[in-house]
């Protein structure tokens, strides 16, 4: 089976590029086909890139606090554009201010994200989850 493509990017007007660089290097090293859109990516750019590259997942980053505003509607847009089975991950400093992780997770799950990550997530762990989530979807699909 070919390496699954994943789309990376930092959503909205967010310029935090350091984590994104590291994620690109890391997920490439883990054998994913990484399509990195860099910082300041709009919802539409994410979805278009996923369609274009037949991506299995979109990994959205948001560090600067506007994640709550920027991420709303992404799941709908995916569905609207025919990506009805794509995996959506989101991670970073997702809301304004120090907030209990559970609260943040609930908020973003409700928005349609499959998994929600804190900034101190060990990327190895995220990669393992991603692999198994992709497996699971493929299994269901076939």
């Amino acid at each position, binding site marked *: 089976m070919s390496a699954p493509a994943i789309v990376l990017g930092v959503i909205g007007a967010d310029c935090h590029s350091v984590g994104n660089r590291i994620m690109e290097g890391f997920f490439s090293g883990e054998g994913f086909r990484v399509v990195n859109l860099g910082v300041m990516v709009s919802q539409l750019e994410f979805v278009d890139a996923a369609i274009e590259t037949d991506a299995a997942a979109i990994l959205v980053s948001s560090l600067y*606090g506007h994640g709550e505003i920027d991420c709303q509607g992404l799941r709908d847009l995916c569905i609207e554009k025919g990506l009805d089975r794509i995996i959506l991950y989101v991670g970073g400093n997702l809301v304004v201010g120090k907030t209990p992780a559970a609260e943040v997770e609930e908020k973003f799950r409700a928005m349609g994200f499959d998994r929600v990550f804190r900034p*101190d997530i060990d990327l190895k762990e995220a990669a393992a989850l991603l692999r198994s989530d992709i497996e699971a979807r493929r299994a269901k699909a076939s």
Partner: protein
Amino acid sequence: MISNETVDLKEFETIRKEVLETWPTGKGVRIEDGVRYQKRIPEEKRFSTAMKTARDKGRILLQPRAGVALIDEHIKLLRYLETEGEADLLPTTIDAYTRQNRYEEAEKGIERSKAAGSSLLNGFPAVNHGVDGCRRVVDAVVSPIQVRHGTPDARLLAEITLAAGFSSFEGGGISYNIPYTKKVPLEKSIRDWQYVDRLVGIYEDQGVRVNREPFGPLTGTLVPPFISHAIGIIEGLLAFKQGVKSITLGYGQAGNILQDIAAVTSLNELAEEYFKRAGFEDYEFTTVFHQWMGGFPEDEAKAFSVIAWGAVVAAFAKPEKIIVKSPHEAMGIPTKEANAQGLRATRQIVSMLADQRLFDSLTVRREVEIIKREVRCLMDKVYELGSGDIAAGSVAAFQAGVLDVPFAPSIYNLGKVLPMRDNEGFLRIFHKGNLPLDNDVMAYHREKLGERAKAEGREISFQMVTDDIYAVSKGKLIGRPR
């Protein structure tokens, strides 16, 4: 082509009309009105005066970052930082939509924040609040107050906030573009900042001094002093050309105390040298030290120590101002309480250490000389590329990678330079990319990195850079193998 010329007043007026049109609150902003308002501000509340006094008396002033969506909440926040935080200087940190001139989204953020009863914006949307809203803020506080942001095109923001009485304005055409944006051409941002500086110059001409502060730390991530120094000096030169008279150059803590002391020392010496050489005489120059600008540890106890270490280094390096972090740094915009904690922790260190001196040091002097060499390598080339014009030279230099900011998001930044820590935690250059560093300078960097590779028993590699990026948040300075 861009050039380092004072913006012609006619041209300024033409552009100005357009700028004020870009959002309703811009309409009717009048400089004369701003000047009148500024002149009513008492001397102790003038930013440039506070900075100059600090320099004259050898004092270190403390300033937090802070901004929320709504005016009343913002005022409450700032007052709390004055009283409970004992801040000497106040900020108004602008939200990220405003920084991108996305005023409609900022408006949405204001509405939603009102509904949510808490700020959903990561800063204060000053443009949307307009001159009157901003004046409410300026009037409500007793300390000098500054606009802090990250806006490549800050023309409208400057028009509104200066008219409202803010007496200092952070940023610059390079430092608020390269680390903060993806697709804004450098030529455009430099031009837009010439406008801002010209505006400040116009206030100056009318007897109102506004302090300007290029953003020193850039990406805040392993930026070697010479890179930020070169950019800071360039932005200083650009600002002076437009009539700015009070400038504060910044530096973000790198982590090794000797390198950081050397950095502040060399910044002082170099800036004066380049400013004088360019023919400027009649200016007020000060420095600002930023506590650790890279990734923080999540644990608050550990974060307190990162804050305290920054304060310790500053106490010995003796800048005029420290920008203070909070124990919430790794997690999110701090509450007012956390922000005040950062201030009080810093205050405790700065005053406990106020009378202590570190002795003269060969190592510091050696590093000062190296930083100076490095900055000269860069500056010579920038002047050369611009045929003597620093504005044109800067644009060309970024294109050529002669100026290159590590980890920056901008497509106008080459992004080839890779910094790395040596065995004592000094930032050195691993890949120089196209930086015009002399061979002997690079040999020194390589020698120092070699010491680390040897100590760690591994080859110099990109993994070390990644490890260095994570190090402080994991409780170390140097990203050693486990």
